[in-house]
């Protein structure tokens, strides 16, 4: 009897859903992405080429300042929530396939170059915890005794991260038998974020507590802190900072790259060879993200509260602002398509995500979203240091 029933179900299933089964079975993830809906603790799964929302998944907890990395096969998104939750989402089925509350309060994560380990940086308790990407079982824990920021993956199954309170950069080697970490002191006062160059060589921490940034050469056996752009504020009184800038995406074009100045309405151009200042551009407000369009022809900048209704586009050759857009209230994040033809922009207080053509600057699509913040496309799975 049971066998007959099962057979009946199978036949019914085959008859009723052949089209769906076929598309589900053959869907790829290369054009998928996720959008964080920060206030409702939900995540949208999107198709970036169709400009379509495929699914809304709930149950991620507090997603303020959430970030995402992808499994090496770009099927799973690891979502890092502010409340310490680490959640794995299957982009093909929309199912949550694992969730751990790994700390009380966290800030971001990274995945190792081999895709085997996921690391999370925490404010409380301070430090980094590392988990098996398949099972989400704990693998290692690094107690830095301080709020920990700027977590990136390094080649060779390593992670680098930096402490806000104590100005240390830790390099944890998860390929070593004892999982040891090297601690480099003297990074500077209150590093607020850090980024890694696409070749994995330069790790640069931005400083809130002093005028300048610190670079570590990760190709060096014993990296030494190198202060770059010291005194870039040139004694000018810094403005109140209502939102910390993010250092994400190495905005390099030719021989120079760009960084947000903290407390000033400027972005700073840095010589990519010797890390000296190579110019600066006055912009609309205090930059939060200064991200290069893939290929490096433009840099797109958004701004801190209360000037956060604007986006500016800089030409990387001239360093000049070539376009000013007003997407709407609270522009929080930008994500480029992997080849840079489009950029997605979250406009939190308008409740939309906008898609712009990066050649014409035309608005080409708009998707509804509930307090959208971070946007993450699966192409990130294949890039170092995100």
């Amino acid at each position, binding site marked *: 009897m049971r066998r007959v029933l099962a057979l009946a179900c199978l036949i019914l299933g085959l008859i009723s859903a052949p089209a769906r089964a076929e598309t589900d079975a053959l869907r790829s993830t290369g054009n998928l992405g996720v959008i964080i809906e920060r206030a409702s603790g939900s995540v949208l799964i999107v198709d970036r080429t169709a400009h379509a929302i495929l699914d809304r998944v709930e149950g991620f907890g*507090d997603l*303020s*300042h959430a970030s995402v990395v992808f499994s090496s096969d770009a099927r799973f998104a690891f979502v890092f929530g502010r*409340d310490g939750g680490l959640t794995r989402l299957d982009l093909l089925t929309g199912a949550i396939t694992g969730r751990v509350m790994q700390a009380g309060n966290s800030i971001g994560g990274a995945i190792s170059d081999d895709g085997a380990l996921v690391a999370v940086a925490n404010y409380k308790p301070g430090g980094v915890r590392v988990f098996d990407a398949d099972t989400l079982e704990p693998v290692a824990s690094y107690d830095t005794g301080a709020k920990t920021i700027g977590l990136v993956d390094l080649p060779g199954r390593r992670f680098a991260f930096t402490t806000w309170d104590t100005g240390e950069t830790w390099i944890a080697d998860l390929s070593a038998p004892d999982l040891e970490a090297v601690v480099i002191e003297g990074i500077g006062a209150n590093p607020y974020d850090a980024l890694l160059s696409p070749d994995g060589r330069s790790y640069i921490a931005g400083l809130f507590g002093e005028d300048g940034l610190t670079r570590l050469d990760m190709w060096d056996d014993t990296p030494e802190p190198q202060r770059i752009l010291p005194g870039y504020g040139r004694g000018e009184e810094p403005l109140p900072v*209502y939102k910390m800038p993010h250092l994400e995406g190495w905005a390099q074009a030719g021989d120079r790259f760009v960084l947000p100045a903290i407390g000033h309405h400027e972005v700073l151009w840095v010589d990519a060879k010797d890390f000296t200042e190579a110019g600066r551009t006055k912009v609309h407000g205090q930059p939060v993200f200064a991200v290069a369009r893939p290929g490096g022809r433009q840099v797109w900048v958004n701004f801190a509260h209360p000037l956060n209704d604007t986006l500016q586009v800089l030409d990387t050759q001239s360093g000049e602002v070539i376009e000013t857009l007003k997407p709407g209230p609270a522009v929080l994040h930008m994500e480029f398509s992997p080849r840079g033809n489009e950029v997605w922009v979250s406009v939190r207080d308008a409740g939309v995500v906008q898609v712009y053509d990066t050649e014409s600057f035309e608005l080409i699509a708009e998707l509804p979203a509930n307090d959208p913040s971070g946007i993450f496309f699966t192409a990130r799975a294949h890039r170092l240091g995100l």
Partner: protein
Amino acid sequence: MAEGRVLALALVAIPLVASAEPDPAHLERLVIQDCGSCHGLTRKGGLGPDLRAESLSHWDADGLTEIILDGIPGTAMPPWRPLLTEAEAQWIAQYLLTTE
């Protein structure tokens, strides 16, 4: 010259209007979203400290109002005086002390 004076007058008028009536919906959203950047959407803390009512029980509204307006020098807490009126800062201080 005349144009400049009109513009200046207009700029002054905006905060005066705002100070008469703090807008609770606007301020609550500001607390959740913009204070939340550092203190968490649920005010459990982040780069900045925990701002839940029970964690602030040793504070009074005037002390909090002062911190909101003038910030805490040497820390990441900025002065909000350029963006908020005293009445708005007081409303936020009360909100933090009384709202879960």
